[in-house]
């Protein structure tokens, strides 16, 4: 393995890898082998991958090399190895959503997002671990075991896209795909010290993404840097006729926006997002990040999002209702797990679902079924939708005074595996800063902005108005230019604490 490849992988930048592959400095196959080696070496401990598609990755790497050798044009991500959350349907490759109920399910079709990444030349290394059906924020709800935080293997990586965040942080892929329903990209990005982006609802197609809560599910990328995330989002964003909630507006130039600067931008800081329960080290890191952006040329204004305290309740009413509905299809009739030796149709349903679902999906199916029961629609789902409207209005009003809003991503840094598993409510409450933009469908990202005294990453969240992704990348780009958090690496995995 050439040192050129090893240093490329250590820094792991999407554009650098693609440029090196295109320029013939490295072969795509070499890059793939280097990542496969790292997975073989480290993933036994970390548990990021549910399935490594080594043969497929090698084949696709050779394909890129052959295309380049023949002079054919390749995509902007040619030769970039990526990891894919196991919620994306991949044709011919088992897709389980980290649930026993989908064990053995091999989709006969490909999600729009993974198809677009393939078309851009990216090379899928395998399917990443997650909380079962994306329900959770610690990745402890996977039916196939937890993911460990690369910064401290005793701790959680966050969730539900825990595998996606940890794999990027550990250098087990250059970038990855996740999904964010109430914070499932942003929160693990914060806990693992990487950048994760959730675009405007409808900006990235949900076709082929296994549904958790349809009106809240946002597919999106993870990268080490803001630019990596911008490259990934550029490849996957855009209208898709297969998703009726897809937006037809043209896609912005996210990579260019990273260098756009923040001069003249107004950054709103909502006091409601610096509330009780926020770890003091996180608060000071986020306030320092705001100050950094001010010094880079932005102005800082206080804004108010008064309905924030209702967001978690509204989110759990809406998301559980939609989840109970979306998970009704797992009945053992057509695919996935099916109970044997049953005496009746009712028993087939009860046993299939009882055996197939883990406790968190069961809990949410029960909650969602309760929420939608006849006669209570207005009291629960209807009221939650009205709260959702008020929260959306809050943001709209705030954006009259600012261009982007800055907040902490998570009130807590990575906690110990098992520490909070018996208190689901406490975990639900930790979603407090991410669910608001989810309910409003707003673009938001999490970016590293420091480390705690325990050496754990801290992330800040940037939120923009609908289709304001470029603003997020301008702020994120300016922040990265002024700081070096994105260059930190877990020593045990890279042999160094800082890479260029």
């Amino acid at each position, binding site marked *: 393995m050439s040192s050129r490849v090893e240093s490329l992988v250590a820094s792991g930048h999407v554009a650098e890898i693609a440029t090196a592959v295109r320029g013939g400095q490295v072969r795509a196959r070499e890059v793939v082998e280097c990542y496969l080696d790292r997975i073989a070496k480290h993933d036994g401990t970390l548990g990021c991958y549910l399935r490594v598609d080594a043969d497929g990755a090698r084949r696709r790497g050779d394909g890129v090399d052959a295309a380049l050798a023949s002079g054919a044009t390749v995509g902007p991500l040619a030769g970039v190895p990526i990891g894919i959350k196991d919620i994306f349907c991949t044709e011919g490759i088992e897709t389980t959503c980290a649930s026993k109920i989908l064990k053995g399910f091999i989709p006969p079709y490909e999600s729009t997002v993974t198809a677009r990444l393939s078309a851009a030349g990216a090379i899928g290394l395998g399917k990443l671990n997650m909380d079962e059906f994306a329900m959770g924020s610690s990745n402890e709800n996977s039916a196939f075991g937890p993911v460990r935080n690369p910064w401290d293997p005793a701790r959680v990586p966050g969730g539900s896209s825990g595998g996606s965040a940890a794999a990027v942080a550990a250098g087990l892929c250059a970038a990855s795909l996740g999904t964010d329903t109430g914070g499932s990209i942003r929160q693990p990005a914060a806990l693992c010290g990487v950048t994760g982006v959730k675009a405007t609802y409808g900006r990235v197609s949900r076709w082929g993404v296994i549904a958790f809560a349809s009106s809240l599910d946002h597919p999106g990328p993870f990268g080490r840097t803001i630019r990596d995330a911008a490259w990934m989002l550029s490849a996957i964003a855009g209208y898709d006729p297969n998703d009726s909630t897809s937006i037809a507006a043209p896609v912005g130039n996210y990579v260019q926006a990273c260098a756009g600067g923040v001069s003249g931008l107004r950054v709103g800081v909502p006091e409601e997002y610096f509330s009780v329960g926020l770890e003091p080290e996180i608060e000071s890191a986020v306030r320092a990040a705001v100050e950094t952006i001010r010094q880079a040329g932005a102005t800082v204004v206080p804004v108010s999002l008064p309905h924030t305290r209702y967001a978690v309740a509204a989110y759990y009413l809406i998301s559980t209702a939609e989840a109970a509905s979306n998970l*009704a299809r797992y009945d053992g009739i*057509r695919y996935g797990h099916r109970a044997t030796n049953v005496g009746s149709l009712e028993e087939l349903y009860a046993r299939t679902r009882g055996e197939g679902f883990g406790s968190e999906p069961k809990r949410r199916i029960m909650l969602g079924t309760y929420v939608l029961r006849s006669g209570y629609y207005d009291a629960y789902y209807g009221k939650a939708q009205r709260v959702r409207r008020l929260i959306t209005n809050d943001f709209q009003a705030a954006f009259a005074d600012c261009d982007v809003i800055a907040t902490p991503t998570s009130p807590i840094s990575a906690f110990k595996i098992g520490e909070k598993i018996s208190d689901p409510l406490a975990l639900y409450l930790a979603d407090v800063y991410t669910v608001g933009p989810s309910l409003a469908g707003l673009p938001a990202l999490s970016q590293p902005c420091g480390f705690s005294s325990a050496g754990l990453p801290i992330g800040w969240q940037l939120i923009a108005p609908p289709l304001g992704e470029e603003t997020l990348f301008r702020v994120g780009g300016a922040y990265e230019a002024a700081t070096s958090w994105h260059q930190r690496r877990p020593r045990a995995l890279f042999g160094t604490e800082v890479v260029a």
Partner: protein
Amino acid sequence: MSIADVLSRWEPVIGLEVHVQLATKTKIFSPSSAAFGIAPNGATDPLVLALPGTLPRLNRAAVDMAIRLGLAVGGRVRPECRFSRKHYFYPDLPKGYQISQFDEPIVEGGGIEFLFEGKPHRVALTRIHMEEDAGKNIHASDGRSLVDYNRAGVPLCEVVSEPDLRSAEEAAEYVRALRVLVRTLGICDGNMEEGSLRCDANVSIRPRGTVPYGTRAELKNINSFKNVKDAVTHEIFRQAALLERGEKIVQETRLWDANRGVSQSMRSKEDAHDYRYFPEPDLPPIHVDEAWLADARSRLPELPMARMARYQQTLGLPEQDAVVLSAEREIGGYFDAALAHPGMKDLGKRLANWVMNELLARVTDPRELVDANLPIPPANLAELVTLVEKGTVSGKLGKEVFAKMWDERLTASAIVERDGLAQVSDSGELEGICVQVVAANPDEVARFRAGDKKLQGFFVGQIMKQTGGKANPKAVSEILGRLLK
């Protein structure tokens, strides 16, 4: 207890929900074929099978059909409507929910008009909503159950009437009228035996002269006009018998068994599903603007009641003829096509007679009338009617010509020429034959002149015999009149 007996004491209150399968090429939310008769599970795709990650994509052709139906019944097409999810578990329902409409149906109000007991009649509609059909469970003889998902996702319009029907006959006529309407609109093939039109009936009874509704039962699985009548009648009897024994009606869903002519309870109100409706988050609301409405309106054909009125008013057809000719889309279509030929406008009644007496007698299914292989296309019938009217062929021989046209697929003029069936109207030739017949029968001539006018028929018969039936009867009677004076 006769039905008249029961009805003298009890007044039925009936509301119908008719599921109209829309004749789109593809399913309502996916590109699979919506055709009937494909090998089991041959018309499926990842969405139909509810594979995870699939999303519905609305087929606008289905919406357009629903809009046309809404306009045809005079309903209000909502400018915005949406789909909802209706949840229940059953193997033929792949997603565990049906995408249907709940609080915002595409059409509200309107009514179905038809002739009932000889009078124009209108049954008000509550609403028309769109939804997807379910698949079919098949219970094999070896005890296994199989599921065919071909029907899953086929678009339906559910037409919901007000509880305004008061008899089983009225209910059957309502369904018949709705079938003619949807076939006229071309939005449903109306094949009840294939399930293209399926009916659920809500039935209750109340003592005559009282106002409050009784407890209702919902009858499911009613798939023909006869079944509508039989199932509703059976339910009226069943409820009357219970009430007259002092028992109560239980609100329940009952399944009609057409073979045995009875219904059986499926589930009571206590076991009723909680469908947990909520707006379908995968589909944005549907907006129907004025332009769409105007365009749909411009594509509406003449509706059955309007056609019936036109036949009576502009052609002067008796009501009975107008009813027959407008009863099926294809009959009216055939009649109108023939009517469009030169000279036919003034011969509407004649043409109607030929269609009703000769053509329809040879057709078992009205759809044969639009078949390219129909032996007598409208133009050929128009020609025959013209030949008879001009006197080229006699009315009696005309029927023979019709039969030959049907059997041999030839035009009327071709048959008349080939078989020499043209009437002998040439007065010189006829005169000679008449003179000969009069001369050959002096006794009869004497009796005729003495006042036995019935002998006219004898002379005509003799002349027809001589001419092989081709003598023009009018000309014959004119000549005989002169010779026998």
